[in-house]
């Protein structure tokens, strides 16, 4: 039962976009089309899952023994950046159509706060291996879930005639705010 509560809180209560404010740049940027949103979501899940494993290992066997925990940010950023570079090369060479669909999002991931945020929460709450996997899985699915639903809503909103000072990003932010209020009422 313990795992399940962590998973559901990461999914809805502690949703990384709506309550923890991570990854809003990509959330606003890539959620105007449904295809972009899905592409972004899958890439983020893909990158986060693998890098949680890497960062957990690094943290457990390199950083804590040499108690240089303040170097955490530097190491993790490097891990993510070079990992994104690796995935870019792999997807370009082997599964080319996946690369075509995910191509524009891979460099964007490095500047995505969500990826780094999840890893940092895992490390700060010093979860053991399985719980950190479960937590990052829950938050990634929460990320994909919110960004997909939001992209459907934004496609619908863009057709309305909103006054032109609120068109585009401000109306998206206000709708995201209302969604956040609803999410906070669920738990």
């Amino acid at each position, binding site marked *: 039962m313990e795992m399940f509560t962590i998973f559901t809180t990461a999914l809805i209560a502690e949703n990384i976009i709506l309550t923890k404010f991570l990854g809003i740049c990509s959330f606003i940027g890539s959620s105007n089309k449904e295809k972009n949103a899905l592409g972004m979501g899958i890439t983020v899940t893909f990158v986060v899952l693998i890098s949680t494993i890497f960062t957990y290992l690094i943290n457990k066997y390199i950083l804590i023994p040499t108690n240089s925990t303040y170097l955490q940010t530097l190491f993790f950023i490097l891990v993510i950046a070079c990992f994104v570079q690796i995935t870019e090369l792999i997807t370009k060479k082997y599964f080319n159509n996946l690369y075509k669909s995910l191509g524009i999002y891979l460099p964007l991931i490095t500047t995505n706060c969500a990826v780094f945020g999840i890893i940092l929460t895992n490390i700060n709450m010093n979860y053991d291996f399985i719980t950190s996997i479960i937590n990052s899985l829950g938050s990634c699915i929460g990320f994909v879930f919110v960004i997909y*639903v939001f992209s459907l809503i934004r496609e*619908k909103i863009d057709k309305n005639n*909103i006054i032109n000072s609120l068109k585009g990003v401000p109306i998206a932010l206000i709708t995201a705010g*209302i969604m956040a209020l609803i999410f906070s009422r*669920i738990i």
Partner: protein
Amino acid sequence: MKFKVSNGPFVKSSNSTSKMMTRLLIALIPIICLSILKNTIIVYFYTDATLLESLHPIFMIILSIITSYVSELLYFKFILKYKIADCIHELSKSFSIIPGVLLSLVLPVSTPLWVIVFGAFFANIFGKMIYGGFGQNIFNPALIGYLFISASYSSLIGSHLNLYELDTLAGATPLTNLASLNYVGSYDEIVSGYGSLLNFFVGSIPGSLGEVSKMLIIFAFVYLTITKTIKYLIPIFYVGTVFVITYVVSLFTDMGIWYPIFHILSGGLLFGAVFMATDPVTSPITKFGQIFHGICLGVLTVSLRFFTSYPEGVMTSILFMNMFVPLCDKIGLSVKNNLKKVWIYILVIVIFISMTSYFIINKISYKEENKIPVNILETKKEGDKTIYNVSSKGWGLIKATVTVENGEIISIDITDKSGETQWSELEKNDYANKAIEYQDNIDSLDAVSGSTFSSDGIKNIIKKILESELNNEK
């Protein structure tokens, strides 16, 4: 000879949006009258409340209608800069009376008036106008008002009981009462506190302004479906799913048929299903989309009622499902194009229902044994002393050997505490021995600040061992 050109067929049905809205109002009027009867006239006669206080619900309804009209007028005048004539024309076409009335019917009886003004203002501006006026909003405007009120002034809303009920009925609304009994209980615990199920049906139970007699709501539903003003599929499947899930739950926890009926008749379920969920603008347009929407609403309401602290799951689940309307339409469209796909979605629905009912049953039955997260690895008997080797859940895992002599714990030594990060404070005021002294009422010993998990771990060890001692003696 010149003619004007206009498009579309030139013979049109007599039905029009304003007619539909007036029919909706006609369906609402009996409910308003009965709630006024229940909340003002009875209150005025039976309690010593002054006339002004007892007329409070009527002011609530009138005020929320006026504010929604005024806020629309302001929005048109100042933001969109229409002239007065255009404002009046636009106002007549945007029927802002419906969200106003619905909002006031949803709020508890004793909400202060300025909260209503705040709620209606936000309901109209943020619910409808910034999305482009009538017919283009994503969320149900009345529920947006409810959301803003409960997010900002939830403490001020006040209890659901009106003045008359305050002094006659002790308990809170049936649902909060159910939640306090952790969702299980016999017929008389849950229902008979408010008279029989008939009272629920007639409506003499405490609740918000609109949760009056379910009979009137059902009549309104029949009237609206005959005159084809609302999407009748949504309420049918919504209430149906709630009935199915609660019936399955009542089967497993052997509580009889009255349990699902109690769930349907209590809280704002019927009112929300007939008036809120079927608001044409914020519900799916395709047939199967409506069915899917209704079923997901039911699943969500039941899970909210059982899992979260909020007794009232209906309003939040309708708001939550308003976000999925484009998704339901997409599903409805794919089913409309080829019917074979409908089996995938039926499968998803069946999985949803069975999962929620499994978790609910699991949650209810799990509560009965109230397991303490401690497991005894092995027990050794030495003379009259018994030595327990125990592992309990602190921050990580605490292992300890505890020696007990004729029902009294005499010593605990912690063998493994690698998982505990802040163990030092516990050692400082040697928490283990202190726990032994307090072993009779262990809960009165408060945890050490900064390491609550570890101290709870130790307290659980004591509880578990005392409990197992009791079982051995029995």
